[in-house]
């Protein structure tokens, strides 16, 4: 069992929301040699996961500085790409290098800065130099990480327009609807 006075000083320091001076500690624990107690506590905790630290006249406990990296951890969060992001990525993949204006003209809608940022952060696209036209717009291209993620050996593995059409992926809704109507109407 530790000395009762040392225990009291230790508890007061532990529970305090702010660093304390020896005088402040004495106000809690009453008569006794606070400085000697502080020295004892400091020695007792040397080499442990946390210790007593002196800053000017104030004392407080803190975790050992060399263990700071344990106090944070990374957490992977799986998140779905937004529709705008996946479309933008697809356009860059099929048309690279592509400028923002290229993407917008193909998508038919403006894209936000955030959409490009998400793809850059995901590591799937990279800036690929400027195009030598007025305004010198930045172009984007896909990265090896992109090929990796989607299991592609090269961009040539992406299905072409003809493949997409054969797979029914190129049919806008009203075209598909019309096809259905015609085939039902006159089967000659």
């Amino acid at each position, binding site marked *: 069992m530790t000395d009762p006075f040392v225990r009291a000083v230790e508890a007061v320091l532990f529970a305090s929301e702010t660093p304390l001076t020896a005088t402040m500690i004495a106000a809690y624990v009453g008569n006794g040699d606070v400085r000697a107690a502080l020295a004892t506590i400091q020695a007792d905790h040397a080499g442990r996961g946390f210790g007593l630290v002196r800053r000017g006249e104030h004392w*407080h406990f803190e975790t050992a500085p060399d263990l700071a990296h344990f*106090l944070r951890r990374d957490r992977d969060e799986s998140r779905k790409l937004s529709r705008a992001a996946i479309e933008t990525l697809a356009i860059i993949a099929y048309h690279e290098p592509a400028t923002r204006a290229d993407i917008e003209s193909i998508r*038919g809608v403006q894209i936000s800065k955030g959409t490009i940022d998400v793809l850059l952060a995901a590591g799937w696209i990279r800036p690929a130099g400027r195009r030598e036209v007025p305004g010198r717009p930045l172009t984007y291209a896909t990265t090896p990480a992109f090929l990796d993620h989607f299991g*592609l050996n090269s961009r040539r593995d992406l299905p072409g327009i003809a493949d997409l059409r054969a797979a029914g992926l190129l049919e806008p809704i009203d075209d598909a609807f019309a096809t259905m109507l015609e085939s039902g109407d006159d089967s000659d």
Partner: protein
Amino acid sequence: MEADAPVLTIELDGWEGPLDLLLALARAQKVDLRRISILALVEQYLRWIDRAAALRLELAADWLVMAAWLAYLKSALLLPREPDMDPDPEELALRLQLRLERLDAMREAGARLLARDRIGRDVFTRGDPEGLHVVRKARWDASLYELIDAYGRVSARTRPVLHVVRHRPVMTLEVAIARVEALLGTAIDWTVIGHFLPADADERFRRSALASTFLAALELARQGRLAIRQDAPFGPIELRPVA
């Protein structure tokens, strides 16, 4: 028992309902709750209610319901017991006693719980913890299918749309005029317009031919080369050469 019954101040706010008062009265008997006298308890409660009534205190319904129930219980307990009395008054008394025991037990438990060393009152956690941090790293997820599906969607949305009109079999007005002129030569009397149409053509071609032939007939009538008649609305249309 009555002599040492405590003087309870009539104070409605003081009791959380009849059961609370009953428990206070029972504890005042200073015996184990399992050995309290239910009859004495009932007496005390009814006396309390009487005093409240005498003081013209407004009593909530549940106090009066309990009073009525206890009055019934009292008379049932005092009357010579009939074997088939339902519900058995002894059982009712026992149930009341069980309820009081349970309330008492929980009141006691609550007090003991609160008397424990509680965080923030008796024991303290660290006053100024550094805190632990979670660094969230987004891992974006998308499949190849989603990628090519997206491209298909975009392409379909913005590809120039080309309209192709499919070929349909039609008879032009010129052809119809020529046919009617030729056939009029062979007809002498009124002839139904259907005779001027090509035989064994498919239905859609016949409908086109009918429209064109009718127009041809109108044109030739305008030129004074044939006459048209229709005896009744929607009746057969007949043509005849003008001599």
